[in-house]
């Protein structure tokens, strides 16, 4: 029998993502990968995976998944979303904490109430082919991940292992991910296409995330940035976090699925260790920028690496307690009156 996560509802935009597909940008292939690489790494660490293993990236509203395997260990990390066992007994499950589910269990991840993206990591890995070296989904190109697309009802996402090993579960003690505003940017490579005041305007004013945000880019609203040499450049390469400014003067931050080349001038670029922080912003949120040097970017990167290095010591292991063992209940009938797998029976609090 194959082990799989059976998708009852796909959610708004659920895709398989790892840390991205490098090596093919010269052929126009975007890098893709997790928008919030920090959250992906945390989720993977909680289930005992290597940090770069592919997980489900959830934007907006999460999926409803039925477990079709003997035992699956999962962990959700990232923005705040409710996570609930729907069947056999309804109960809330924790975030930033691993847990095991069994065959027939149904899990629902609700809408993100804070942050824009969260990750469901699965111990072992998804049994999907790598495309050009990566499991990341590039939906516009229709390749990678699960058939190159977002998850939909009736999909079966195959799992490599059908029975996760028994051991203690893991919990992140301080459930906050590193990353704060302002977002640090390095000027260039085309800051000379703008008025001298443009970089000051960008760094001295708050901008608002507009609803025009997806895995490719995030369009911002705020004071316009004025071009002085037109808004077309001879195409050159793009970078993750590059801030390009089309003719209307409103900046767009390029995200994971960005095109590899582009013809709009780029006034600056978000430093690599602040990219995840940008990805967590939702439409309506305020974003602020400040200038940074390459040296400051290097320091920030080391700080983030140190945070990851300390991650294992920030995680405590514990034996799950107070969890109703539904299998035992159904066979042993320990509690009178509430036995059964009827969804309508709510646990008393």
């Amino acid at each position, binding site marked *: 029998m194959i082990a799989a996560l059976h998708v009852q509802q796909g959610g708004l935009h659920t895709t398989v993502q790892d840390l991205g597909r490098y090596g093919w940008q*010269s*052929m*126009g292939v975007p890098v893709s990968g997790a928008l919030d690489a920090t959250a992906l790494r945390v989720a993977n660490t909680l289930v005992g995976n290597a940090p770069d293993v592919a997980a489900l990236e959830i934007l907006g509203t999460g999926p409803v998944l039925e477990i079709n395997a003997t035992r699956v260990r999962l962990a959700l990390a990232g923005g705040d979303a409710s996570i609930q066992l729907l069947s056999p007994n309804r109960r809330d499950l924790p975030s930033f904490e691993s847990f095991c589910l069994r065959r027939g269990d149904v899990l629902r991840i609700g809408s993100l109430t804070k942050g824009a993206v969260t990750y469901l990591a699965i111990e072992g890995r998804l049994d999907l082919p790598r495309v050009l070296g990566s499991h990341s989904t590039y939906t516009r190109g229709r390749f990678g991940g699960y058939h*190159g697309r977002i998850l939909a009802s009736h999909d079966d996402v195959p799992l490599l292992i059908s029975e996760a090993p028994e051991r203690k579960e893991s919990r992140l003690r301080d459930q906050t991910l590193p990353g704060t505003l302002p977002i640090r940017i390095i000027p260039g490579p085309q800051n000379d296409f703008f008025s001298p005041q443009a970089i000051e305007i960008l760094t001295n004013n708050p901008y608002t995330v507009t609803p025009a945000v997806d895995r490719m880019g995030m369009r911002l609203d705020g004071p316009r940035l004025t071009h002085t040499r037109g808004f077309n450049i001879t195409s*050159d390469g793009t970078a993750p*976090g590059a801030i390009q400014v089309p003719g209307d003067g409103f900046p767009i931050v390029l995200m994971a699925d960005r095109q590899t080349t582009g013809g709009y001038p780029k006034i600056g670029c978000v*430093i690599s260790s602040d990219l995840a922080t940008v990805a967590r912003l939702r439409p309506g949120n305020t974003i602020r920028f400040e200038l940074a040097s390459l040296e400051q970017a290097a320091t920030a990167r080391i700080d983030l690496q140190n945070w990851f290095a300390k991650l294992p010591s920030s995680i405590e292991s514990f034996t799950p307690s107070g969890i109703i063992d539904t299998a035992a209940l159904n066979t042993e009938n320990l509690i009178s009156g509430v036995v059964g797998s009827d969804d309508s029976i709510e646990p008393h609090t």
Partner: protein
Amino acid sequence: MSASPRFLANGDTVMVVEFGDGIDLETSSRVTALATYINSLALNGINDLVPTFRSLAVHYDPRYLAFGILEETVRAALPDLKVDHHSKREWLIPTCYDPQMSPDLTEVAERCSLSIEEVINLHSQVAYHVYMIGFLPGFPYLGDLASEISLPRKETPSLRIPARSVAIAERMTAIYPNECPGGWYAIGRTPMTFFDPLNNPPALLAPGDQVRFKPIKRDEFDHLADKNEHLVGHDAMGLPT
């Protein structure tokens, strides 16, 4: 002797080596020569090298490489950079200019005050240089297009340019690997596959290649397209379609 390139930071993971801001064979050849050279160094920490018309984007991992060291390495190599104007590979691309497969051919002829045959001749009698691949996976920018058939991009892009369309705009011609909206004029169709993520490498063309278009008749197109169907009849996971 060409001027020294500019070394520009595009964030802390990309160094842009900019040789100019125009579109010409000399600049493009220096870009691809530098890419070849950096590749040959097999440096730890280079994630990607992306040649464009006038610059090379070096994607690096700052854990292994610092901007300054990278710049020094490139600067040291520049005087001896072997710039080869000869193409690495030459391609002959069968292309059908049948009006049914070429939604914009008539419009191009009218706008340029040429006959359809003249447009086809002007397009197919040039050896094009692959400047870069970008915009979409496998989308090649080929130049230079004859000035007689050079038109600005459409003011209103077409909603649907069919996959494998051969299209023109400005002094460029290109091939749409997949169906998508676009502002270029579609003047022909090729039965060949230009991008397949299951191939290694996934794109048929690479920067520095030379491309010619060979006009073929509709029945030959159908024959080749049929043959190609058998080769590419799978989805992105390798499953039969």
